[in-house]
């Protein structure tokens, strides 16, 4: 599993959704702004549940938000 990375397009998707703030995304997805920051920086990989909730906020699929680069 070494070297496997989960990338995401959260920053891009926020921008595409009327420049949604990190605070707002956190509120809608049920997590803190700091977690959104950490996700966007690629420091934190969310649970499946949070990943689904974020995808739901953007009204898209989980594969459209997250990409497994293993």
């Amino acid at each position, binding site marked *: 599993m070494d070297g496997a990375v989960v990338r995401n397009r959260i920053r891009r998707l926020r921008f595409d959704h009327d420049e949604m703030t990190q605070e707002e995304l*956190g*509120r809608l997805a*049920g*997590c*803190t702004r*700091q*977690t959104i920051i*950490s996700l966007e920086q690629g*420091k*934190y990989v*969310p*649970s499946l*549940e*949070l990943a689904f909730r974020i995808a739901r906020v953007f009204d898209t699929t989980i594969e459209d938000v997250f990409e497994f680069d293993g």
Partner: protein
Amino acid sequence: MAPLQRRALISLVLGLVWTAVLVVLFVTRGGIEGFMNDTPTRVLLSVLFVALLTSVAFLGVPWKARSGRGVDVDERDLEILRRAPRVQLTAMMLTLAAWVIGLTEYYWDQGSIPIMWPYLMMMTTILVSTLAQSLGVLIGYRRS
């Protein structure tokens, strides 16, 4: 800064300052001899020790986190909190090892150690454990 991170930082700073006060009082009031023979000194240090633990626990990382589920504390915070005991355990083991090796070597010739040392061992181990939990949380935030 996440709410849990802020609380951990406050707990750590408060704990370190209070610990420094305890050490200064211990040293200026005669060290182990004062602690053994002077009841007011022992009571004062014990009361300050309990007050420190109570205040850090009140600010405390786990209690607040568990009461604040929702946007205030999320899965990342809880994961960091779950990993903090690794730092806590390491710090406690090192503290105990330092105490045991230090006291054993120092009192080797006497064949026994003064009765008050185990009491201080307990106090410092609990203190280190409390501070190390806050440190573990802060390290967790730095890494994720």
